[in-house]
């Protein structure tokens, strides 16, 4: 093979190699992007946290400034209620939740926590006063708690058993005190 032919072959090979790297990079970038899109879509399609799974841990800063961490409440049944002052169905269950809380409060085995979702503090406090709610309540700062539980709206109630596992989910308002008891009592046995 002559030198001239050899040079031509080398140039051809170089030309073939150069665009290959570009293609590899482009395809890798596209694959990464599609992967991210897939993960995002998968996450958005996930429903609420599944029953039987460990409940996501969170820290609730109440309107009084107290900090309550879920993992510190192990050994107790936790009733986690998401609500908002502008939510009419929330009003339907507010009095029942407070009445049930008062029944369980002396035993100390059940704790109720209220999380005000995308609500203004002024309106939240007015709502709590209106329904004489005494159990700890606080704002969902940065909507972190609702995102962890993948809530779809308000009212929603999540009941966590004494081992910190999610035991019950209600994606609509409770219709009676009896219904709330039916959800909590089996977890105390």
């Amino acid at each position, binding site marked *: 093979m002559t030198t001239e032919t050899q040079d031509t072959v080398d140039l051809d090979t170089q030309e073939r190699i150069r665009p290959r790297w570009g293609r590899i990079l482009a395809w890798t970038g596209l694959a990464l*992007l599609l992967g991210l899109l897939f993960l995002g879509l998968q996450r958005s399609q996930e429903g609420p946290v599944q029953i039987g799974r460990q409940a996501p841990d969170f820290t609730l800063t109440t309107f009084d400034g107290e900090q309550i961490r879920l993992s510190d409440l192990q050994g107790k049944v936790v009733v986690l209620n998401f609500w908002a002052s*502008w939510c009419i169905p929330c009003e339907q269950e507010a009095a029942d939740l407070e009445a049930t809380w008062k029944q369980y409060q002396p035993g100390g085995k059940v704790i109720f926590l209220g999380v005000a979702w*995308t609500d203004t503090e*002024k309106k939240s406090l007015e709502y709590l006063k209106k329904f004489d709610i005494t159990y700890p309540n606080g704002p969902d700062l940065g909507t972190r708690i609702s995102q962890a539980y993948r809530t779809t709206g308000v009212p929603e109630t999540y009941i966590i058993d004494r081992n910190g596992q999610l035991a019950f989910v209600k994606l609509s308002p409770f219709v009676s005190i009896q219904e709330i008891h039916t959800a909590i009592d089996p977890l105390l046995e």
Partner: protein
Amino acid sequence: MKPRIWIFVLLFFSITLFIVSGASAQDATPRVPTDDEVNAIAKQMYCPVCENTPLDVCPTQACAEWRELIRDKLAQGWTEAQIRDYFVEQFGARVLATPPAQGLNWLVYVIPPLAFLAGVFILYRAFVAWRKPIPEKTPSSVDKTEDEYVNRIEEELRKHQV
């Protein structure tokens, strides 16, 4: 004459006092922000309750309360940036119409220009490829080669015939 002067002096001080007290009373009254001022900030936000509807035009009760909150903060003398930061702290970064370039959000800002540049590059390559003349065999060379080939065949045929 003297009592008259005193009356004028008294009247002058009374009027001055009245004007000064009126002005200070006006200063003490909190300024009520206009709807335009509130909406200028509200249109930069989205409430998670009603997705894809800017806060300034959202008709729900939740959004009305958020707008009132903006009005309250403006009345307290908060700046636009302070109000935005407060909303992010309270309700998360997703309330913002323009997401901050943090975490995976930066992809939103990087991918479109990158895709545009990639498109320009692909188009450029395509144009260059179209303009490049395709190397063709010249008719003379073809003829010459064919001639040589034909000549050789004929020569071989002649040999065999003989």
